[in-house]
Protein backbone atom coordinates (compact mmCIF):
# COMPACT_ATOMS: atom_id res chain seq x y z
CA UNK A 1 0.00 0.00 0.00
CA UNK A 2 2.83 2.35 0.90
CA UNK A 3 4.36 1.77 -2.50
CA UNK A 4 1.08 2.59 -4.24
CA UNK A 5 0.73 5.79 -2.25
CA UNK A 6 4.28 6.68 -3.29
CA UNK A 7 3.33 6.09 -6.92
CA UNK A 8 0.22 8.27 -6.67
CA UNK A 9 2.28 10.98 -4.93
CA UNK A 10 4.94 10.96 -7.61
CA UNK A 11 2.33 11.08 -10.38
CA UNK A 12 0.54 14.04 -8.75
CA UNK A 13 3.81 15.94 -8.35
CA UNK A 14 5.21 15.20 -11.83
CA UNK A 15 2.33 15.01 -14.32
CA UNK A 16 4.32 16.65 -17.13
CA UNK A 17 7.31 14.32 -16.76
CA UNK A 18 4.90 11.40 -16.91
CA UNK A 19 3.05 12.67 -19.98
CA UNK A 20 6.36 13.40 -21.69
CA UNK A 21 7.50 9.82 -21.07
CA UNK A 22 4.20 8.44 -22.38
CA UNK A 23 4.51 10.62 -25.49
CA UNK A 24 8.09 9.47 -26.10
CA UNK A 25 7.07 5.86 -25.59
CA UNK A 26 4.22 6.11 -28.11
CA UNK A 27 6.47 7.94 -30.58
CA UNK A 28 9.18 5.25 -30.31
CA UNK A 29 6.60 2.48 -30.70
CA UNK A 30 4.68 4.04 -33.60
CA UNK A 31 7.74 4.98 -35.65
CA UNK A 32 9.41 1.62 -34.93
CA UNK A 33 6.30 -0.36 -35.80
CA UNK A 34 5.63 1.79 -38.89
CA UNK A 35 9.16 1.29 -40.20
CA UNK A 36 9.01 -2.43 -39.52
CA UNK A 37 5.72 -2.77 -41.42
CA UNK A 38 7.01 -0.62 -44.26
CA UNK A 39 9.85 -3.09 -44.81
CA UNK A 40 8.17 -6.38 -43.86
CA UNK A 41 4.94 -6.06 -45.86
CA UNK A 42 6.45 -5.36 -49.32
CA UNK A 43 9.23 -7.85 -48.62
CA UNK A 44 6.62 -10.48 -47.75
CA UNK A 45 4.66 -9.78 -50.94
CA UNK A 46 7.85 -9.93 -53.00
CA UNK A 47 9.10 -13.28 -51.70
CA UNK A 48 5.80 -15.10 -51.05
CA UNK A 49 5.61 -16.78 -54.45
CA UNK A 50 9.31 -17.56 -54.76
CA UNK A 51 9.57 -20.70 -52.61
CA UNK A 52 13.32 -20.53 -51.97
CA UNK A 53 13.31 -16.85 -51.02
CA UNK A 54 10.20 -17.35 -48.91
CA UNK A 55 11.86 -20.14 -46.95
CA UNK A 56 15.01 -18.06 -46.47
CA UNK A 57 12.90 -15.09 -45.30
CA UNK A 58 11.01 -17.25 -42.81
CA UNK A 59 14.22 -18.81 -41.49
CA UNK A 60 15.85 -15.38 -41.13
CA UNK A 61 12.80 -13.98 -39.39
CA UNK A 62 12.75 -16.98 -37.05
CA UNK A 63 16.36 -16.37 -36.04
CA UNK A 64 15.76 -12.64 -35.55
CA UNK A 65 12.73 -13.41 -33.43
CA UNK A 66 14.78 -15.75 -31.23
CA UNK A 67 17.42 -13.13 -30.38
CA UNK A 68 16.57 -11.37 -27.08
CA UNK A 69 15.25 -7.80 -27.46
CA UNK A 70 17.88 -6.31 -25.16
CA UNK A 71 20.62 -7.93 -27.26
CA UNK A 72 19.18 -6.41 -30.45
CA UNK A 73 19.04 -2.95 -28.84
CA UNK A 74 22.52 -3.25 -27.36
CA UNK A 75 24.09 -4.61 -30.55
CA UNK A 76 23.01 -1.52 -32.51
CA UNK A 77 24.70 0.86 -30.09
CA UNK A 78 28.28 0.49 -31.38
CA UNK A 79 27.02 1.05 -34.94
CA UNK A 80 24.53 3.85 -34.37
CA UNK A 81 25.26 5.33 -30.96
CA UNK A 82 22.67 6.18 -28.33
CA UNK A 83 19.31 7.92 -28.51
CA UNK A 84 16.05 7.89 -30.41
CA UNK A 85 17.22 6.75 -33.87
CA UNK A 86 19.04 3.55 -32.85
CA UNK A 87 16.14 2.67 -30.55
CA UNK A 88 13.60 3.10 -33.35
CA UNK A 89 15.70 1.03 -35.73
CA UNK A 90 16.01 -1.76 -33.14
CA UNK A 91 12.25 -1.71 -32.58
CA UNK A 92 11.68 -1.87 -36.35
CA UNK A 93 13.92 -4.96 -36.44
CA UNK A 94 11.81 -6.53 -33.68
CA UNK A 95 8.56 -5.73 -35.55
CA UNK A 96 9.86 -7.30 -38.74
CA UNK A 97 9.62 -11.08 -38.06
CA UNK A 98 5.93 -11.45 -37.09
CA UNK A 99 4.71 -9.26 -39.96
CA UNK A 100 7.00 -10.90 -42.52
CA UNK A 101 6.23 -14.48 -41.51
CA UNK A 102 2.47 -13.93 -41.35
CA UNK A 103 2.40 -12.06 -44.68
CA UNK A 104 4.30 -14.85 -46.43
CA UNK A 105 2.18 -17.59 -44.82
CA UNK A 106 -1.05 -15.72 -45.53
CA UNK A 107 -0.20 -15.06 -49.17
CA UNK A 108 0.93 -18.64 -49.77
CA UNK A 109 -2.35 -19.87 -48.33
CA UNK A 110 -4.42 -17.61 -50.61
CA UNK A 111 -6.91 -19.48 -52.75
CA UNK A 112 -5.42 -20.60 -56.08
CA UNK A 113 -8.79 -20.35 -57.83
CA UNK A 114 -9.21 -16.72 -56.78
CA UNK A 115 -5.76 -15.93 -58.17
CA UNK A 116 -6.50 -17.67 -61.44
CA UNK A 117 -9.78 -15.75 -61.71
CA UNK A 118 -7.93 -12.47 -61.10
CA UNK A 119 -5.42 -13.38 -63.81
CA UNK A 120 -8.31 -14.31 -66.12
CA UNK A 121 -9.83 -10.88 -65.52
CA UNK A 122 -6.57 -9.43 -66.86
CA UNK A 123 -5.27 -8.00 -63.60
CA UNK A 124 -1.53 -7.21 -63.46
CA UNK A 125 0.73 -8.53 -60.71
CA UNK A 126 0.51 -5.34 -58.63
CA UNK A 127 -3.29 -5.04 -58.83
CA UNK A 128 -3.58 -8.75 -58.09
CA UNK A 129 -1.43 -8.36 -54.98
CA UNK A 130 -3.31 -5.30 -53.72
CA UNK A 131 -6.89 -6.23 -54.61
CA UNK A 132 -6.96 -10.00 -54.31
CA UNK A 133 -4.02 -11.56 -52.49
CA UNK A 134 -3.58 -9.13 -49.60
CA UNK A 135 -7.31 -9.01 -48.74
CA UNK A 136 -7.38 -12.81 -48.71
CA UNK A 137 -4.28 -12.91 -46.53
CA UNK A 138 -5.44 -10.05 -44.31
CA UNK A 139 -6.56 -12.06 -41.26
CA UNK A 140 -3.08 -13.57 -40.88
CA UNK A 141 -1.33 -10.31 -41.76
CA UNK A 142 -3.38 -8.52 -39.14
CA UNK A 143 -2.54 -11.13 -36.50
CA UNK A 144 1.12 -10.50 -37.37
CA UNK A 145 0.61 -6.76 -36.87
CA UNK A 146 -0.92 -7.37 -33.44
CA UNK A 147 2.00 -9.54 -32.31
CA UNK A 148 4.48 -6.98 -33.66
CA UNK A 149 2.71 -4.04 -31.99
CA UNK A 150 2.64 -5.70 -28.57
CA UNK A 151 6.27 -6.70 -28.90
CA UNK A 152 7.33 -3.20 -29.94
CA UNK A 153 5.43 -1.46 -27.11
CA UNK A 154 6.98 -3.96 -24.71
CA UNK A 155 10.53 -3.65 -26.06
CA UNK A 156 10.29 0.16 -26.20
CA UNK A 157 10.52 -0.02 -22.40
CA UNK A 158 14.09 -1.29 -22.87
CA UNK A 159 15.05 1.70 -25.07
CA UNK A 160 15.96 3.52 -21.86
CA UNK A 161 19.11 1.39 -21.64
CA UNK A 162 20.43 2.94 -24.87
CA UNK A 163 19.19 6.43 -24.08
CA UNK A 164 16.04 6.20 -26.22
CA UNK A 165 13.70 7.65 -23.59
CA UNK A 166 10.11 6.54 -22.99
CA UNK A 167 8.46 5.02 -19.94
CA UNK A 168 11.46 2.77 -19.28
CA UNK A 169 13.27 5.96 -18.15
CA UNK A 170 10.94 6.21 -15.15
CA UNK A 171 11.71 2.60 -14.20
CA UNK A 172 15.49 2.91 -14.43
CA UNK A 173 15.56 6.36 -12.79
CA UNK A 174 13.28 5.08 -10.04
CA UNK A 175 15.70 2.25 -9.26
CA UNK A 176 18.77 4.49 -9.45
CA UNK A 177 17.23 7.14 -7.18
CA UNK A 178 15.54 4.59 -4.90
CA UNK A 179 12.28 6.34 -5.81
CA UNK A 180 9.79 3.46 -5.74
CA UNK A 181 6.87 5.74 -6.65
CA UNK A 182 8.46 6.83 -9.92
CA UNK A 183 9.47 3.27 -10.74
CA UNK A 184 5.98 1.88 -10.14
CA UNK A 185 4.30 4.60 -12.22
CA UNK A 186 6.58 3.67 -15.10
CA UNK A 187 6.04 -0.08 -14.66
CA UNK A 188 2.26 0.16 -14.40
CA UNK A 189 2.06 2.49 -17.40
CA UNK A 190 4.20 0.14 -19.51
CA UNK A 191 2.07 -2.84 -18.49
CA UNK A 192 -1.22 -1.04 -19.22
CA UNK A 193 0.05 0.20 -22.57
CA UNK A 194 1.03 -3.34 -23.62
CA UNK A 195 -2.28 -4.84 -22.46
CA UNK A 196 -4.24 -2.03 -24.15
CA UNK A 197 -2.33 -2.60 -27.40
CA UNK A 198 -3.12 -6.32 -27.26
CA UNK A 199 -6.80 -5.67 -26.46
CA UNK A 200 -7.16 -2.87 -29.02
CA UNK A 201 -5.67 -4.89 -31.87
CA UNK A 202 -7.75 -7.88 -30.77
CA UNK A 203 -10.96 -5.83 -31.08
CA UNK A 204 -9.90 -4.48 -34.48
CA UNK A 205 -9.11 -8.02 -35.58
CA UNK A 206 -12.57 -9.30 -34.65
CA UNK A 207 -14.20 -6.26 -36.29
CA UNK A 208 -12.23 -6.93 -39.46
CA UNK A 209 -13.17 -10.63 -39.39
CA UNK A 210 -16.87 -9.74 -39.10
CA UNK A 211 -16.68 -7.29 -42.01
CA UNK A 212 -14.81 -9.82 -44.13
CA UNK A 213 -17.31 -12.48 -43.19
CA UNK A 214 -20.20 -10.19 -44.13
CA UNK A 215 -18.69 -9.16 -47.48
Amino acid at each position, binding site marked *: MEALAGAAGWLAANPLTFLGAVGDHLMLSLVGLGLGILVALPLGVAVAHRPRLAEAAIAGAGALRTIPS*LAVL*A*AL*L*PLLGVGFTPSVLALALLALPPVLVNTVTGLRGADRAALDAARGLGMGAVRRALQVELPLASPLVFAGLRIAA*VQVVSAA*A*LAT*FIGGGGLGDLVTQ*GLALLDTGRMLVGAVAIALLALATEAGFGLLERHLARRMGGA
Partner: protein
Amino acid sequence: MRWTFRNLDLIWAAVLGHLGLVAAALALSLLVALPLGLWVARRPGARAAVLGTASVLYSLPTLALFALLLPVLGLGFRPALVALVTYAVPILLRALVAGLASLPPAVLDAADGMGLTRWQRLWRVEIPLALPALLGGLRVASVTLVSAATVAAYISAGGLGTLILTGLDQGHTEKILVGAGLVAVMALALDATLGAVQRRLPAAA
Protein backbone atom coordinates in the same frame (compact mmCIF):
# COMPACT_ATOMS: atom_id res chain seq x y z
CA MET B 1 39.41 -8.38 -27.92
CA ARG B 2 41.87 -7.74 -25.05
CA TRP B 3 39.09 -7.23 -22.52
CA THR B 4 37.53 -10.55 -23.51
CA PHE B 5 40.72 -12.57 -23.05
CA ARG B 6 41.49 -10.94 -19.73
CA ASN B 7 38.00 -11.58 -18.39
CA LEU B 8 37.20 -15.08 -19.59
CA ASP B 9 36.38 -16.17 -16.03
CA LEU B 10 33.93 -13.27 -15.60
CA ILE B 11 32.28 -14.07 -18.92
CA TRP B 12 32.09 -17.77 -18.12
CA ALA B 13 30.47 -16.97 -14.75
CA ALA B 14 27.90 -14.79 -16.53
CA VAL B 15 27.10 -17.62 -18.98
CA LEU B 16 26.69 -20.11 -16.12
CA GLY B 17 24.61 -17.64 -14.11
CA HIS B 18 22.34 -17.08 -17.09
CA LEU B 19 21.93 -20.79 -17.78
CA GLY B 20 21.31 -21.45 -14.07
CA LEU B 21 18.56 -18.84 -13.95
CA VAL B 22 16.90 -20.22 -17.09
CA ALA B 23 17.18 -23.86 -15.97
CA ALA B 24 15.84 -23.16 -12.48
CA ALA B 25 12.94 -21.14 -13.88
CA LEU B 26 12.12 -23.82 -16.44
CA ALA B 27 12.14 -26.59 -13.84
CA LEU B 28 9.95 -24.65 -11.41
CA SER B 29 7.55 -23.69 -14.22
CA LEU B 30 7.16 -27.34 -15.22
CA LEU B 31 6.41 -28.21 -11.60
CA VAL B 32 3.61 -25.62 -11.60
CA ALA B 33 2.30 -25.99 -15.15
CA LEU B 34 2.11 -29.79 -15.41
CA PRO B 35 -0.31 -30.49 -12.53
CA LEU B 36 -2.27 -27.29 -13.21
CA GLY B 37 -2.58 -28.10 -16.92
CA LEU B 38 -3.71 -31.68 -16.28
CA TRP B 39 -6.22 -30.44 -13.70
CA VAL B 40 -7.82 -27.72 -15.87
CA ALA B 41 -7.71 -29.59 -19.18
CA ARG B 42 -11.02 -31.38 -18.62
CA ARG B 43 -12.74 -28.55 -16.72
CA PRO B 44 -13.92 -25.93 -19.25
CA GLY B 45 -14.74 -23.23 -16.64
CA ALA B 46 -11.40 -23.48 -14.85
CA ARG B 47 -9.62 -23.76 -18.18
CA ALA B 48 -11.00 -20.45 -19.48
CA ALA B 49 -10.12 -18.66 -16.23
CA VAL B 50 -6.60 -20.10 -16.07
CA LEU B 51 -5.81 -19.49 -19.75
CA GLY B 52 -7.20 -15.93 -19.53
CA THR B 53 -5.03 -15.09 -16.54
CA ALA B 54 -2.07 -16.76 -18.21
CA SER B 55 -2.39 -14.68 -21.38
CA VAL B 56 -2.50 -11.42 -19.36
CA LEU B 57 0.62 -12.45 -17.40
CA TYR B 58 2.40 -13.39 -20.60
CA SER B 59 1.60 -10.01 -22.21
CA LEU B 60 3.26 -8.04 -19.39
CA PRO B 61 6.51 -6.47 -20.62
CA THR B 62 9.59 -7.91 -18.92
CA LEU B 63 10.89 -4.67 -17.46
CA ALA B 64 7.46 -3.77 -16.06
CA LEU B 65 7.09 -7.16 -14.38
CA PHE B 66 10.54 -6.98 -12.78
CA ALA B 67 9.83 -3.43 -11.54
CA LEU B 68 6.39 -4.38 -10.20
CA LEU B 69 7.82 -7.30 -8.21
CA LEU B 70 10.76 -5.30 -6.88
CA PRO B 71 9.01 -3.52 -3.97
CA VAL B 72 7.57 -6.85 -2.83
CA LEU B 73 10.50 -9.20 -3.37
CA GLY B 74 13.56 -6.98 -3.48
CA LEU B 75 16.67 -7.46 -5.65
CA GLY B 76 18.56 -10.57 -6.64
CA PHE B 77 18.29 -14.11 -7.96
CA ARG B 78 15.11 -15.21 -6.18
CA PRO B 79 12.79 -12.35 -7.25
CA ALA B 80 14.11 -12.78 -10.79
CA LEU B 81 13.22 -16.46 -10.59
CA VAL B 82 9.65 -15.61 -9.55
CA ALA B 83 9.28 -13.19 -12.48
CA LEU B 84 10.69 -15.73 -14.95
CA VAL B 85 8.35 -18.46 -13.70
CA THR B 86 5.47 -16.02 -14.22
CA TYR B 87 6.48 -15.86 -17.88
CA ALA B 88 7.11 -19.51 -18.54
CA VAL B 89 4.07 -21.02 -16.78
CA PRO B 90 1.52 -19.45 -19.18
CA ILE B 91 3.43 -20.72 -22.23
CA LEU B 92 3.71 -24.28 -20.91
CA LEU B 93 0.13 -24.25 -19.68
CA ARG B 94 -1.29 -23.15 -23.02
CA ALA B 95 0.75 -25.75 -24.90
CA LEU B 96 -0.21 -28.57 -22.56
CA VAL B 97 -3.93 -27.71 -22.53
CA ALA B 98 -3.97 -27.36 -26.32
CA GLY B 99 -2.18 -30.70 -26.66
CA LEU B 100 -4.61 -32.50 -24.34
CA ALA B 101 -7.64 -30.85 -25.96
CA SER B 102 -6.57 -31.96 -29.43
CA LEU B 103 -6.63 -35.69 -28.58
CA PRO B 104 -9.35 -37.45 -30.56
CA PRO B 105 -12.24 -38.53 -28.27
CA ALA B 106 -12.16 -41.94 -29.97
CA VAL B 107 -8.68 -42.60 -28.53
CA LEU B 108 -9.88 -41.77 -25.03
CA ASP B 109 -12.96 -43.96 -25.51
CA ALA B 110 -10.76 -46.81 -26.69
CA ALA B 111 -8.57 -46.43 -23.59
CA ASP B 112 -11.66 -46.48 -21.38
CA GLY B 113 -12.99 -49.48 -23.27
CA MET B 114 -9.76 -51.37 -22.64
CA GLY B 115 -10.44 -50.94 -18.95
CA LEU B 116 -7.67 -48.44 -18.16
CA THR B 117 -8.16 -46.51 -14.96
CA ARG B 118 -8.09 -42.71 -15.14
CA TRP B 119 -4.44 -42.62 -14.02
CA GLN B 120 -3.40 -45.31 -16.46
CA ARG B 121 -5.20 -43.46 -19.25
CA LEU B 122 -3.42 -40.24 -18.28
CA TRP B 123 0.09 -41.74 -18.10
CA ARG B 124 -0.08 -44.23 -20.95
CA VAL B 125 -2.30 -42.40 -23.43
CA GLU B 126 -2.90 -38.71 -22.80
CA ILE B 127 0.55 -37.54 -21.74
CA PRO B 128 2.49 -39.44 -24.45
CA LEU B 129 0.12 -38.10 -27.11
CA ALA B 130 0.31 -34.52 -25.78
CA LEU B 131 4.11 -34.68 -25.56
CA PRO B 132 4.88 -33.04 -28.94
CA ALA B 133 2.68 -30.04 -28.06
CA LEU B 134 4.29 -29.79 -24.63
CA LEU B 135 7.74 -29.92 -26.17
CA GLY B 136 6.76 -27.09 -28.53
CA GLY B 137 5.75 -25.07 -25.47
CA LEU B 138 9.03 -25.94 -23.77
CA ARG B 139 10.93 -24.62 -26.78
CA VAL B 140 9.08 -21.29 -26.83
CA ALA B 141 9.37 -21.01 -23.04
CA SER B 142 13.12 -21.59 -22.98
CA VAL B 143 13.79 -18.97 -25.68
CA THR B 144 11.51 -16.49 -23.88
CA LEU B 145 13.34 -17.20 -20.62
CA VAL B 146 16.80 -16.60 -22.11
CA SER B 147 15.47 -13.25 -23.32
CA ALA B 148 13.73 -12.27 -20.07
CA ALA B 149 16.73 -13.40 -17.99
CA THR B 150 18.80 -10.79 -19.83
CA VAL B 151 16.57 -8.04 -18.44
CA ALA B 152 16.82 -9.65 -14.97
CA ALA B 153 20.25 -8.01 -14.73
CA TYR B 154 18.27 -4.84 -13.99
CA ILE B 155 17.30 -6.32 -10.61
CA SER B 156 20.84 -7.62 -9.99
CA ALA B 157 20.13 -11.25 -10.81
CA GLY B 158 23.44 -11.70 -12.65
CA GLY B 159 23.79 -13.44 -16.00
CA LEU B 160 24.77 -12.10 -19.41
CA GLY B 161 22.48 -9.08 -19.09
CA THR B 162 24.92 -7.78 -16.48
CA LEU B 163 27.67 -7.58 -19.11
CA ILE B 164 25.32 -5.65 -21.41
CA LEU B 165 24.03 -3.23 -18.77
CA THR B 166 27.39 -2.51 -17.13
CA GLY B 167 28.92 -2.23 -20.60
CA LEU B 168 26.28 0.35 -21.53
CA ASP B 169 26.94 2.29 -18.31
CA GLN B 170 30.69 2.31 -18.91
CA GLY B 171 30.48 2.93 -22.65
CA HIS B 172 32.44 -0.33 -23.04
CA THR B 173 31.59 -1.52 -26.55
CA GLU B 174 33.41 -4.83 -26.38
CA LYS B 175 31.66 -5.82 -23.15
CA ILE B 176 28.25 -4.93 -24.65
CA LEU B 177 28.90 -6.95 -27.80
CA VAL B 178 30.23 -9.99 -25.91
CA GLY B 179 27.13 -10.00 -23.69
CA ALA B 180 24.67 -9.44 -26.53
CA GLY B 181 26.43 -11.93 -28.81
CA LEU B 182 26.58 -14.70 -26.22
CA VAL B 183 22.94 -14.29 -25.20
CA ALA B 184 21.89 -14.37 -28.86
CA VAL B 185 23.96 -17.52 -29.47
CA MET B 186 22.46 -19.12 -26.35
CA ALA B 187 18.89 -18.43 -27.50
CA LEU B 188 19.55 -19.66 -31.04
CA ALA B 189 21.32 -22.81 -29.82
CA LEU B 190 18.55 -23.72 -27.38
CA ASP B 191 15.92 -23.14 -30.06
CA ALA B 192 17.80 -25.29 -32.59
CA THR B 193 18.45 -28.10 -30.10
CA LEU B 194 14.85 -28.35 -28.91
CA GLY B 195 13.69 -28.00 -32.53
CA ALA B 196 15.81 -31.02 -33.46
CA VAL B 197 14.38 -33.04 -30.55
CA GLN B 198 10.88 -31.98 -31.61
CA ARG B 199 11.40 -33.22 -35.16
CA ARG B 200 12.71 -36.56 -33.95
CA LEU B 201 9.91 -37.14 -31.47
CA PRO B 202 7.00 -38.33 -33.68
CA ALA B 203 9.22 -41.01 -35.25
CA ALA B 204 10.20 -42.33 -31.81
CA ALA B 205 6.65 -42.42 -30.46
